[in-house]
């Protein structure tokens, strides 16, 4: 990569020494005042609003990510920690519920952003900068949100597998084999499932600790399944949205090629036309000429 800024500025400065009158006042980008045109002034604020909301949503998604990481780390502690399992379990549950809450709230905000984007398209036209900005932010943020929720799902899945493995291992330690189907059945039946299991294990070589373990894991699995059921609708909503979107939505070329030439709004054009008319040299020098008479009709 070659930096050419210095070179350019040298050329520019040389020219200034040569023909200073062409440049007038120094224009400092950061301090310069911008001329206010009717069209631009209208659009600056909506763009700022969209970007502010987008920025805020993006921060929320980052926080969601952090919570998912916290959940993963906490789950990993099950295998290694000497802390009381019940406490660890409680942490996982509360973190996971927190994630679901955040997720739900984010989902609503994203839907609102999507609606806002749709309204902007209707009001300002789909080609205007503000509606394209809104659309791009909405699409990207939805994409990031989905990724965060998928990571959450992944964390729950891993925990589910880990729990199932531990139950089976504990069961085999006390001399009983539990198959996947049996485990499924147990979990589906919730608390009753545990009662059934503990009865069936009465005869086996019992170990209070192992039974405690199994009971704890079973309870956790049940809670996990409940959580996943609760978040199922959210995933379904997101999936429908993805299906409706074409894969082109995230494609840069499709975005660029799809935009049309900018046409300024009508009132600004008329303003300009009036300005040109006033400055028309024909008018200023020779008001009698027929060309001026034609222009009067403007």
């Amino acid at each position, binding site marked *: *990569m070659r930096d050419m800024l210095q070179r350019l500025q040298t050329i520019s400065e040389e020219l200034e020494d040569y023909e200073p009158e062409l440049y007038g006042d120094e224009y400092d980008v950061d301090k310069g005042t911008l001329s206010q045109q009717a069209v*631009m002034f209208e659009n600056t604020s909506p763009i700022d609003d969209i970007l502010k909301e987008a920025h805020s949503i993006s921060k929320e998604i980052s926080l969601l990510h952090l919570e998912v990481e916290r959940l993963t780390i906490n789950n990993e502690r099950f295998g290694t920690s000497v802390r009381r399992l019940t406490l660890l379990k409680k942490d996982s549950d509360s973190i996971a519920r927190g994630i679901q809450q955040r997720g739900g709230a984010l989902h609503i905000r994203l839907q609102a952003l999507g609606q806002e984007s749709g309204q902007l398209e209707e009001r300002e036209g789909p080609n205007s900068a503000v509606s394209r900005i809104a659309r791009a932010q909405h699409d990207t943020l939805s994409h990031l949100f989905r990724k965060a929720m998928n990571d959450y799902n992944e964390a729950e899945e891993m925990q589910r597998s880990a729990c199932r493995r531990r139950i089976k291992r504990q069961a085999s330690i006390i001399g009983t084999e539990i198959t996947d189907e049996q485990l499924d059945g147990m979990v589906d039946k919730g608390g009753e499932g545990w009662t059934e299991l503990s009865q069936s294990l009465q005869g086996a070589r019992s170990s209070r600790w192992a039974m405690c373990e199994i009971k704890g894991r079973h309870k956790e699995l049940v809670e996990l399944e409940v959580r996943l059921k609760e978040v199922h609708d959210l995933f379904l909503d997101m999936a*429908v949205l993805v299906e409706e979107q074409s894969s082109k939505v995230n494609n840069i070329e499709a975005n660029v090629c799809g935009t049309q030439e900018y046409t300024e709004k009508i009132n600004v054009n008329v303003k300009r036309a009036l300005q040109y008319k006033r400055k028309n040299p024909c008018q200023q020098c020779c008001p009698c000429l027929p060309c001026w008479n034609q222009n009067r009709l403007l």
Partner: protein
Amino acid sequence: QIWVCLKKVPEILNGVIKSVKKEGEWKVLIVDHMSMRILSSCCKMSDILAEGVTIVEDINKRREPISSLEAIYLISPVEKSVRALIDDFKDAAFTYKAAHIFFTDTCPDGLFAEIGRSRVAKVVKTLKEINVAFLPYESQVFSLDDPNSLYSFYSSKPNEGKEKMIETLAEQIATLCDTLKEYPAIRYRKYEKENARLADEVYQRLTAHKADNPTMGEGADKARSQLLIVDRGFDPISPILHELTFQAMAYDLLDIKQDIYSYQSTGIGNSNDREVLLDEDDELWVALRHMHIADVTKKVTELLQTFCQSKRMNTDNANIKDLSQMLKKMPQYQKELSMYSTHLHLAGACMKTYKASVDKLCEVEQDLAMGENEEGEPLKDAMKSIVPVLLDNEIKAYDKIRIILLYIFHMKKGIGEENLAKLIQHANIMADSNIINNLQNLGCNIIAGVDRKQRTESTYQLSRWVPIIKDVMENAIEDKLDRKQWPFISDPAPINTTQTAVSARFGHWHKNKSPTEYRSGPRLIIFVIGGLSHSEMRSAYEVTRATDGKWEVLIGSSHILTPTSFLNDLKSLDQVPNPDC
């Protein structure tokens, strides 16, 4: 010494945008046609939005002023784009607040001075040349995005733009080497004069780049890197054969435009239209694309079964294609499920088209291309095998032309005009017959005299043909490529074939990286003038794998072609260029 491969180019481009990112501030990104193609092949909207870009604009379209935001101009240093840039800051009211300019490659002095003289110089905060003027199409395939290249090189009509085009291509290839930090020895296939011309131009550009970037070619192994320039005419068979590997077959038989595969499938919503991008983000595509079609469906089905089992989803075989049930039960796996669905549909579509007409053609084609049947017996009466095909009205014109062309190549002494006319008549392809004549523009010689390698690996009967470039790749790597047929532009560094691949001075910093990231071995870069076929792309991967990672083979061209697009290109060779192109 950082190893740069084609896979890293997206990072480089992202890095460019990231370098001017300011927390809390958004920017407008402005591109021209070329830079948009490059960027789009590497990055997604979500990538650039993550680096602070909030809207992407086409520099050549009239744009809405957004004076509250600064603009990043990622453009090629050509007159049209530079004018548009200058225009943005011409009037009293600037279109954007400031400008960060990134040129895809070296900006000519004249244009540079113009920018210096304009008001842009007052608002510019960044100005760099990034030296990325090519598309990293795949991890080992690059494209220069010029589909008119075949016409430009081989048209029988006078073409004023040819010189300029050769310079542009050469510069693009030089930026490829610059980015990869390679300074390869340049060789070209002697037979065609354009090869030498381009090779020479590349050498000049490469040397100019090295003057600014001395790290190019640094490293003991890099001295062995080679860049080969070869013309399309050197292997006209590979682009017209019906291939039965997944990627080649799909692009040949189905209508895949801009790498997007469209199909219908019931889902959970109302929409049944699916559009899927076939690129390296799709891991399943990467795993399947070079596989023979017979293995593809089996493999995908296997993988889907495994996936469903691991997620404890009940699947009857009947339901595998019915995604909607699975999706309803487990919508969080939409990405994975739709990936499996896409490839099942794609493989199914290939097989359907194949069984409809292509299966009759493959055996004939392979026999003609190989000059022998599957038992290894030389073909005795080629005419007998092609006539039924030519007379068959169910077979499309272009498929018949492909057969005729293969027949002509098979007849090493050429084919008489009368016989050719008869064939064309039997086939009823008068309208497209100039394709056959135009092939001569490529200097297509008969393949007689080219020694093909004897290959012992077992292959499917209908996939016996091996692209000629694969022989060339292997020979180049083993330093067996004939120097008379493939001369060097300049005297190469002496090649010590006993050198081991990984340089000892690399130390330990690379130990945590995956093998592809720190490999420092030599590269073989191949540039085909006039278009690249999928089977040749596949060869690059196969040969690389066979070296066990010691060499990396990259292959590229002005564009990737399909048999249909190749025949279309040939068709237009004797026509006046379309002024809109």
